[in-house]
């Protein structure tokens, strides 16, 4: 029987002088899309790089399709695509010659699929990466990642630098890939990407995983409370998180299970973006105390 999870990460840690990844664990179910979110510098790219030993973790284990990464590097990389944003390599070679070299490494490279994505993204093979805009470089990177029949795609900010129409296109490609049974993990800080296509999210904050669960579940954990004056906040007995100034008064997060019904508070449903900014405000406040 095939393993249920395409990716499992157990207790991954990496210590740097000013930052550390701390006991990162989460798993990704086959045939789903997971959004990996967190603010700049939260550890998204470091985590993704650590999956492939590009950053060498101090401790922890990673397994793909039930196989540990260590010892199965080649097989796993053949079934996986990793793209780290824009294509920043060999700036003065034509896309054609870069692809010609790249394709030879993959067991299941598919020229027809590659040609179809080139056309879809409007990429000219005779151009060099130096001649492409940032967005087009991202598209070329995606094009390479999508052309070797990978079962699992791990994409670091695949939508950053893309115009809204292209972003939509890329997200639609994700949805159709998942329909074919593929699995996708992508990092982003564009929250609407998640709303469009993610089944689950993993939220990382300063190197620690804050949540890893279905999008709806995460969203249902919180509500937004509105306060007109500072005094209202002080009087409120609820556990409120991440107070931020709003145009009129203040807003804060409240956890749904915290007995919010007992006290009349002006509240509304929380969007992912609101949850994120308030959780970050909470963290800021904690650090400054």
């Amino acid at each position, binding site marked *: 029987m095939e393993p249920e999870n395409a990716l499992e990460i157990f207790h991954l840690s990496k210590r740097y002088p000013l930052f550390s990844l701390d006991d990162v664990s989460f798993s990704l179910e086959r045939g789903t899309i997971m959004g990996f979110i967190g603010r700049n510098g939260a550890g998204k790219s470091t985590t993704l*790089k650590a999956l*492939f*030993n*590009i*950053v*060498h973790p101090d401790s922890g284990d990673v397994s793909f399709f039930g196989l540990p990464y260590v010892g199965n*590097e*080649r097989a796993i*990389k*053949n079934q996986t695509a*990793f*793209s*780290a944003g824009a294509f*920043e*390599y*060999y*700036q003065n070679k034509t896309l054609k010659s870069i692809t010609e070299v*790249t394709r030879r*490494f*993959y*067991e299941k490279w598919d020229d027809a699929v590659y040609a179809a994505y080139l056309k879809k993204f409007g990429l000219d093979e005779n151009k060099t990466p130096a001649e492409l805009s940032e967005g087009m470089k991202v598209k070329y990177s995606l094009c390479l990642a999508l052309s070797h029949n990978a079962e699992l795609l791990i994409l670091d900010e695949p939508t950053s630098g893309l115009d809204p129409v292209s972003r939509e296109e890329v997200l639609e490609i994700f949805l159709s890939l998942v329909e074919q049974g593929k699995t996708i993990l992508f990092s982003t800080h564009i929250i609407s990407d998640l709303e469009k296509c993610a089944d689950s999210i993993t939220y990382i904050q300063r190197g620690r995983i804050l949540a890893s669960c279905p999008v709806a579940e995460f969203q249902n954990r919180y509500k937004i409370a509105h306060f007109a004056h500072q005094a209202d906040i002080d009087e409120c007995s609820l556990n409120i998180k991440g107070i931020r100034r709003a145009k009129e008064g203040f807003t804060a997060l409240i956890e749904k299970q915290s007995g919010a019904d007992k006290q009349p508070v002006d509240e509304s449903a929380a969007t992912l973006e609101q949850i994120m900014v308030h959780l970050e405000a909470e963290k800021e406040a904690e650090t400054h105390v």
Partner: protein
Amino acid sequence: MLLIPNYPYYVVFFYACLGVFFMCLQGRENHDIFYSLLLPIEKKDIVKARISAVVLVELAQMIFAIPFMLIRGLFPIPGNQVGMDANWSLLGLSFIMLGLFNLIYFTYYYKHPQKVGTAFAWGSLGITLFMIVAESTAHAVPFVVNVLDGPNAEHTAVKLITLVVGLFVFSAMTYLAYKKSARSFETLDL
């Protein structure tokens, strides 16, 4: 350059080392290591591929040098006045020099792939010292002066043995360079 009548012939093989430096420099500018990391290969394969390519370049230069070494021997003029003559032992000793370069250069380079220049500086320093010592022995050490130096026709067997020993030392040092580099590169963060 082996046809220059009087010249420190070891320098000829330094040019291969310079080539290695440019190869890695270009790799750095093209972010070659990161590109390679995305391919379905193991991390140590990146080291293996680079060192293999360098060995091919070094061997090619050595093979290409052989006819010129032989031609230099045909000149009806005295041997090299600077140091070692162009003969089989020069090639053998140069193999040791290249092995030394590979060991110093790659061990440093795969710990700090961004510092191509520093790696090259250390490698060059190592082989410069080697050249100074090697050329000095061609004037001062009787065995080198009488047996290893001089035309190929004299002490041919010892000269050929020097070549074989040189090739062996080169292989051992380069293999050690690969082992050490692969180990440090495995734990390197990029």
